[in-house]
C-alpha cells in the first residue's frame, strides 16, 4: 500500500484546492487550481496508471 502513498498525498493537495475553488471561485484559487491542483492530480493519475501497467505486464496480462 506504500505504493500509492505519494499519489494519495498529491490527490489530497489537489482536492484541498479544487473543492474550495468549485464552491467559491476567485482569482487566487483559480491560479492555484490551474497551476498547482491540476498538475498534482494529473501526476497522481499517471503514477497510478503506471503502477497498473507494471502490474499487468508483470502478470503477463499485457
Amino acid at each position, binding site marked *: *500500500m*506504500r505504493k*500509492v*502513498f505519494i*499519489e*494519495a498525498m498529491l*490527490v*489530497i493537495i*489537489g*482536492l484541498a484546492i*479544487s*473543492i474550495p*475553488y*468549485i*464552491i467559491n*471561485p*476567485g*482569482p*487566487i484559487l*483559480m*491560479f492555484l*487550481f*490551474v*497551476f498547482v*491542483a*491540476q498538475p498534482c*492530480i*494529473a501526476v*497522481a*493519475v499517471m503514477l*497510478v*496508471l503506471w503502477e497498473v501497467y507494471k502490474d499487468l505486464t508483470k502478470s503477463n496480462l499485457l
Partner: protein
Amino acid sequence: METILDILAVVILIVEVILLYKLRQNRFQEKLTGGVRAMVLVAIILFPVLAVMLGNYHVFVTTKESTACQSCHVMAPMANDMMFDTKSQTLAARHYQNGWIAEHECYSCHADYGFQGTMKAKLDGYRHLMRYVTKTYEEPIRYRGEFNSMNCYGCHEGSRTFEAVEEHQPVVENLKSDDASISCLNCHGRAHPEPSRRTPGHEDYKWLSNPKNKEISVKDANEVKEYISNLAVSKK
C-alpha cells in the same frame, strides 16, 4: 448549475475522506485485494478527475460572466464604471446599463480574450492571472495590442439602426480588409474610463475601485435625510 456543482463538490469531498481513510487502514497489506484496488481506482483516479472537470467548468464557463472579471481588483475600475456609474458615457456602461447585451457583457466585446478562443487568447488569460496573483502589474493597466472592432460588428451586423447609417459602409469594408485602419472607438468614444481616472491617487480612483467609497454630495445627503424623515413619519 452553481448549486449542483457545490453539492457535487461536497459529495466528492466526503467520499474522498472516507476512501482515503479506508486506504490508510490497509496500508500494511503486502498484496492488494480487489476491493482495495477498486478503492484506489475511485479515490485516486475517478473522483479527482471529476473534481478537475468541475473546476474547469468554472475556468472556461464562469469566467465569461462579468462578475468574474469584477472579482479581480485590477479590473474593478472598468467593471464598476460599467455597472454602477449611472452618469458614465463609456461604451461599456451604455451597453451594460441599457441592457443592450443580454449576458456575458465583458466577454461579448472581448470574445477574442480569455480561457476560450485561440491559443494566444488562452495564453493571454493565463499570463494575466499569473501577473495578477504575483502582483507584477502596474495601474492603470493598458491594453496590449489593439481592440478588434470586428467584435462590435459581430452583434451590430445586419441591425436596422446600424445599416441605416451610410457612413458605416466604408468602415465595414475597411474592417474586413487585411490592413484595417479604423476603429469603432474613433467615432463612438471610449470603451472604459480614461487611464488617468484609473490611476491610484486620482479623485475618481477611490470609488471606481470600490463604489461603496463614493462620497455623498450635499444634494444627495439632503435627499437621504428627507427620505429617512418621510419613512419615520409614515411608520408613525
